[in-house]
């Protein structure tokens, strides 16, 4: 593993009742890149990132994070190691205030000034004015931003975003672009995304998944030119 690699998987596999959701995946994420994960529905994208974040266990294969084997590590410890996951379906504490939602992401880091850190994360997504609102009362777009703010406040080395732009308006997506760009190169972003415009705009590298296997990995240009990808996905 070279020093530029943040995370890599070797032959990572997870089956569900005989369905090969993730089937021998080798993936490598570089320090400070925006890496997109694309593929048709059912390709195994969400299963793959669930394996990376520890929400589900791998059946075989290995996951290395900063050179360390984390395959058997529970999810909450991976978060503290620097792997943050934002949910595809918004998962916020609907009954708590916006501030408390983000404060929970900050608390275990025991920073000198926790409140300042919370506000900084809220400012990055533009929700500082909503700090005392009850999270469940926010608009859908703002709830997505809050979810993102919680991910940012974890101060991750790797931020996994599972379909972050789903259901957002065009204007909100523009704001989202800027936020994701601001994360790199200090940290790495792994982005699952259906919106091809967003992927082509943001990603430095793209991995295409199909039927649980890696079909291709490369720059956006390489992926666009790849015939197998065109056949399986882009040309559908």
């Amino acid at each position, binding site marked *: 593993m070279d020093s530029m690699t943040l995370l890599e998987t070797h032959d990572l596999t997870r089956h569900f009742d005989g369905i090969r959701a993730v089937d021998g995946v080798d993936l490598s994420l570089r320090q400070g890149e925006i890496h997109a994960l694309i593929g048709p529905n059912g390709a195994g994208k969400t299963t793959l990132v669930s394996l990376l*974040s520890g*929400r589900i266990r791998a059946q075989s294969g290995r996951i290395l994070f900063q050179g360390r084997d984390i395959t058997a590590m*529970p*999810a*909450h*410890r991976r*978060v*503290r190691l620097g792997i*943050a*996951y934002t*949910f595809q379906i918004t*998962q*916020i*504490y*609907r*009954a*708590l205030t916006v501030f*408390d939602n983000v*404060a*929970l*992401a900050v*608390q*275990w880091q025991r920073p000198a000034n926790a409140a300042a850190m919370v506000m900084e994360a809220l400012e990055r997504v533009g929700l500082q004015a909503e700090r005392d609102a009850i999270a469940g009362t926010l608009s859908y777009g703002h709830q997505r931003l809050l979810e993102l703010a*919680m991910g940012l406040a*974890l101060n991750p080395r790797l931020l996994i975003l599972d379909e972050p732009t789903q259901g957002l308006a065009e204007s909100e997506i523009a704001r989202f672009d800027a936020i994701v760009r601001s994360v790199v190169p200090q940290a790495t972003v792994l982005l699952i995304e259906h919106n091809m415009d967003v992927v082509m705009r943001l990603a430095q590298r793209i991995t295409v998944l199909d039927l649980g296997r890696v079909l291709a990995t490369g720059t956006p240009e390489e992926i666009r030119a790849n015939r197998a990808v065109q056949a399986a996905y882009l040309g559908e």
Partner: protein
Amino acid sequence: MTARILWTHVGALAALLAAHVLLPAYHHGNLARIMVLAIYATGYNIAFGYTGLLSLGHALFFGAGLYAAGLTAYYTGLPGWLALLAGPVAGGAVALALGSFALRTAGVAFMIVTLMFAQAFHLAILYLGRWTRGDEGLVIARASRQLFGLDLADGSVRFLVAWALFALTMVAALIIARSGLGRVMVAMRENEERSRMLGYDPYMTKLIALGLSGAMSGLAGGAYALLFGYVGASLASVQYSILPLLYVLLGGAGTVLGPLIGTVAMFYLIDLASNVTDAHQLVTGAALVLLILFAPRGILGSIRDRFARWIP
């Protein structure tokens, strides 16, 4: 801590003291009992109200404290404070032991598992009747109920000690509720998966909460044994698992003062009802059904929702 939160809780404690001075003697024994039960409800609230652990087996922790303190006082010549201390230690230890098993389940399975363990404990007390005298119970002699030279059998002393123990428990609950741990407990209640993905271990958080809850319940049990001088199997029966649930539901789950309010309200509701009918179980049952149907947030919880979000 903001001033109004501090003053609300200090005020509640002062009101209890004032009640002792102002109310006729009839209420003194009642109030001592209410405060011991309110300690129990406060402990239950840490698990159920804040962490979302709906246990049907807290009589196990209350009973562990009751018998740890009661048997110590009855059979050994150890000083009263040691017997009292045995209560929370036993309650906490049993809660941690039970939690290490039961917390592998959730929801309905957790309710049944806790119910079963408490039932086994109740049966064990009956089975060990040679030492516990089962349902008949043990009456602890006045000489064994001394705490630092204070005679716990005396009505006024009993009230003040119950008050002091309740104050201690309430302050502890307030500190827990406003601490980082309290916030994580609420986070587990609200959304466990989200909390896990923010870096918190659900199992450990719940185990700590259950341990604290068990220690408070055990303190209540120990205080009951020494203050009222009686330990019996019926105090560890399933009814005593339901009581704190009822108090907390009525007063407001997840509020610091809710358990006290619920205990006072329920106690006097049953007291009033006994003037009309001897059917106090009917009051308990109807209260449970009506609360869960129409006011699941309880008295203080409803007030907090409508008027005062700052109530911890």
